[in-house]
């Protein structure tokens, strides 16, 4: 089925938050700190206040009637900086004015006096003994991290995730092959093309916001708690989102917009510029020390990983990213011993948050480079070493968690085949494959309502958000399948917490699987209702009645759905309403999960120019192991999008910070892949083993290929003979690695 929203978007009719105008709306602009760490000595708004068209100016002083801190994992984030700024870009004040130009001019007229504080610019600086603390005092846990009880922080480490099983030191001491390395993974900007935008309205009825948020119910909860309003009186509306990729997960610009609207007494719209969104969220940069132990014939024995995630000045989703990274660090192999120590560290930089396949994208490439090195030393092909060591379906991935629910060996063989693994290659060509797992599904709570109208058309109400992935289409298809009617007669519209029932989040590849399951159950409730009406028409054996082509059938007789509904209500009107939901079977804790393991498999072929260091990706292949593909075309599109983002991240995307200041906060200096970067060939193989918990055996996709392709490009470049320890693989980095390698070879020759 074609995307239900295609026409609207092609015609430029689709509404995004930045397109919305509400009556009496003011334009908001944020004043952001130019300093990475400083005390706020004074704020003088007098010149700005006096400007015609300025309606109100918000500072921390206006927030003293509430507890102005939020944060779903750690409640460490003030709506505006209070007494102290912790990152360059942190909001210090906000202006609401009658037009955008006036708001911006007023922001420039606010005079803030700062007193520098020592800047903790890097993880190394943050971990040093006697490092200044980014946050003083005890940290308050947030309500929505799902990670159990958070331990006390240790200095600038706000969260730690560890795994320790087997006798790791003994295994390493006696292993034939030990590979060790230090790896650096850059910060990146998710770059959803639509920046963070919010319209907020605060009045006697409560709080109403239109926001670019992926998780409207979580934002609703945080806003309700901040402003002391019951949940039911906070309304979050999410129209189409211009991309998300995790950059719009959890709470971002909503609290400041609400606070400004509250003070202004009128609705306010704030639209970030790209440079503002780049300091609103970014991907955690990370360093890791990884060791792998194996036997001389390539049996993997143990994996030991230490990783440090730079979460910036506020935790945002840092703890979860760290935990998921810890889970991804070993890789899906049959280890005898695993030790992981992953730390989430505060620094005086812009806060890091979710980005596609977080955790797996961070650590899969490093681990897989080492698996390939083991293979080289053991004389094995990269496919063969994986064939021998990968976990099989049903085996334990981590103790107490969900066993493996995919056929990884089958998948890796398919992806190698799709890439043309065994074709002859020239010396400048490298091929790589990579296998990983991502704990997917987040928290399994979703609900949906299906309403069938008197004309037989139906409406799906579900609280997940349309970021572009096509879930409104998928939900219509799921309902259509259950109700035996064309999906084109089913609409699924935007999210509005007033009407669409609770869905925990849109992310972690969970929507088709979990929200889709809720939709399936809701549609099923309507199905049952239709059959029960039919049973009053044809009493007798209920098994003799079935639904087909928008009607109930009993032998040769039929009644359309409109006829059945008319019979129920005795008039032309009424609705059949079905409800369905998903909730955890156990406690729903992180440790018991995940809902499913998303397969992160990619293969890549690259060509490395040793003279210039330029890496070209010539072919890619990915696996979408989705159980059942509700809409195969949309599944392929996910992998294609993930592949291009993976190429960008592997080869040229990097946020560059210096002393806490972001240097390349624009798209001229932060390079996003264009059509010119598309490889000559890319293939997505859809694998359907009906082994997912979602509707018809489905499980999610969209993120695995991102981690898989980044890792496959890294292993492909290594296969081309270039040592890889740091991403992105810019020409300079690759050239330097080749230079060092050549110099080392020359030295060895000289002394040999």
């Amino acid at each position: 089925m074609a995307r239900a929203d295609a026409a609207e978007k092609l015609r430029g009719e689709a509404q995004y938050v930045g397109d919305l105008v509400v009556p009496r709306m003011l334009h908001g602009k944020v004043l952001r700190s130019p300093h990475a760490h400083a005390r706020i000595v004074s704020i003088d708004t007098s010149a700005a206040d006096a400007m015609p068209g300025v309606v109100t100016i918000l500072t921390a002083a206006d927030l003293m009637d509430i507890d102005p801190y939020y944060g779903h994992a750690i409640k460490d984030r003030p709506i505006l900086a209070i007494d102290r700024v912790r990152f360059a870009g942190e909001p210090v004040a906000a202006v609401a004015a009658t037009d955008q130009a006036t708001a911006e001019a007023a922001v420039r007229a606010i005079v803030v006096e700062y007193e520098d504080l020592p800047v903790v610019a890097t993880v190394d600086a943050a971990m040093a003994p006697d490092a200044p603390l980014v946050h003083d005092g005890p940290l308050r846990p947030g309500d929505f991290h799902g990670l159990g009880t958070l331990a006390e922080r240790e200095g600038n480490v706000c969260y730690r995730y560890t795994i320790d099983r087997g006798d790791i030191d003994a295994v390493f001491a006696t292993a034939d092959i030990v590979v060790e390395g230090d790896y650096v993974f850059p910060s990146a900007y998710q770059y959803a093309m639509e920046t963070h935008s919010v319209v907020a309205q605060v009045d006697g009825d409560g709080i109403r916001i239109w926001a670019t948020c992926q998780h409207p119910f979580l934002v609703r909860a945080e806003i309700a708690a901040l402003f002391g309003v019951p949940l039911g009186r906070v309304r979050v509306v999410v129209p189409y989102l211009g991309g998300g990729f995790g950059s719009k997960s959890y709470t971002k610009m909503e609290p400041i917009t609400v606070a400004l609207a509250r003070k202004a007494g009128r609705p306010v719209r704030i639209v970030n510029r790209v440079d503002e969104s780049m300091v609103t969220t970014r991907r955690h940069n990370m360093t890791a020390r990884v060791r792998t132990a194996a036997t001389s014939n390539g049996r993997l024995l143990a994996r030991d990983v230490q990783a440090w995630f730079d979460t910036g000045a506020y935790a945002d989703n840092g703890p979860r990213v760290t935990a998921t990274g810890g889970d991804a660090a070993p890789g899906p192999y049959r280890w005898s011993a695993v030790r992981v120590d992953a730390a989430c560290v505060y620094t005086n930089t812009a806060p890091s948050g979710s980005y596609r396949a977080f955790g797996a994208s961070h650590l899969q490439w490093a681990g897989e480079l080492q698996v390939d090195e083991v293979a080289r030393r053991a004389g094995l092909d990269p496919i063969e070493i994986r064939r021998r060591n990968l976990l099989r379906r049903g085996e334990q991935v981590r103790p107490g968690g969900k066993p493996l629910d995919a056929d990884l060996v089958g998948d890796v063989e398919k992806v190698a085949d799709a890439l043309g693994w065994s074709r002859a290659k020239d010396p400048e060509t490298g091929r790589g494959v990579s296998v990983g797992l991502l704990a997917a599904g987040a928290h399994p709570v979703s609900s949906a309502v299906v309403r069938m109208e008197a004309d037989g058309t139906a409406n799906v109400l579900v609280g997940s958000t349309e970021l572009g992935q096509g879930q409104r289409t998928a939900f219509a298809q799921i309902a259509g399948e259950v109700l035996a009617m064309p999906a084109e007669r089913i609409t699924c519209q935007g999210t509005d917490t007033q009407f669409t029932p609770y869905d925990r989040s849109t992310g972690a590849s969970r929507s088709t699987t979990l929200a889709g399951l809720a939709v399936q159950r809701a549609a099923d409730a309507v199905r049952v209702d239709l059959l029960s009406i039919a049973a009053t028409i044809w009493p007798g054996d209920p098994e003799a009645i079935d639904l087909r082509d928008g009607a109930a059938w009993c032998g040769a007789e039929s009644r359309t759905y409109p006829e059945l509904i008319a019979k129920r209500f005795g008039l032309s009107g009424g609705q059949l309403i079905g409800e369905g939901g998903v909730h955890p079977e156990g406690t729903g804790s992180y440790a018991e999960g995940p809902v499913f393991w998303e397969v992160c498999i990619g293969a890549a072929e690259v060509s490395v120019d040793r003279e210039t260091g330029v890496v070209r990706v010539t072919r890619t292949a990915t696996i979408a192991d989705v159980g059942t593909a509700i809409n195969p075309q949309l599944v392929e599109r996910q992998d294609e999008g993930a592949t291009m983002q993976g190429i960008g991240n592997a080869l040229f995307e990097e946020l560059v910070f210096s002393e806490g200041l972001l240097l390349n906060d624009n798209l001229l200096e932060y390079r996003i892949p264009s059509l010119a970067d598309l490889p000559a060939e890319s293939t997505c193989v859809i694998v359907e083993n009906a082994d997912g918990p979602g509707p018809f055996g489905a499980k999610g996709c969209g993120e695995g290929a991102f981690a898989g392709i980044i890792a496959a490009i890294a292993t492909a470049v290594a296969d081309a003979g270039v040592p890889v320890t740091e991403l992105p693989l810019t020409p300079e980095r690759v050239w330097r690695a080749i230079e060092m390698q050549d110099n080392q070879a020359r030295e060895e020759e000289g002394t040999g």
Partner: protein
Amino acid sequence: MQIALELNGAQTSLDVEPQEFLLDVLRDDLGLTGAKLSCEAQVCGACTVLVDGAPVSACSYLAAETDGRVVTTIEGFRDTPAFEPIAATFTRHAALQCGFCTAGMVLTIHALLEDGDLTDEASIRHGLAGNLCRCTGYRAILDAVGDLVTTRTAP
């Protein structure tokens, strides 16, 4: 300052500030929100509109420069016959996801087709390199435009 232009087929007079950008005038003054604000650096193409048939980045194009010119936005283009084949091939190939880049992409494709600049894969890759898309990964867009070029050049 007063300017006079043909906007989406209609003669239009506007009062604009000399420093105002075309994108802001379109979106904020005229309610034509099809062109989107994104990078503000002429890199992403989400703000693309046609001025005298050529794609421009409205975020960096002074409104005053449209005086005496013909401006086409997606709101005007979508009701012309040339829109249909582009929309149809994009729909068939699912060459859009979030939709934020789509209007700019569509207008650029139209302009390049009219100028005869799209003839093969290499020319498509080159011609659309100024229209970023973060969602689709470009494969579907390349295929969609490729189909269009093939159809147009078919005997």
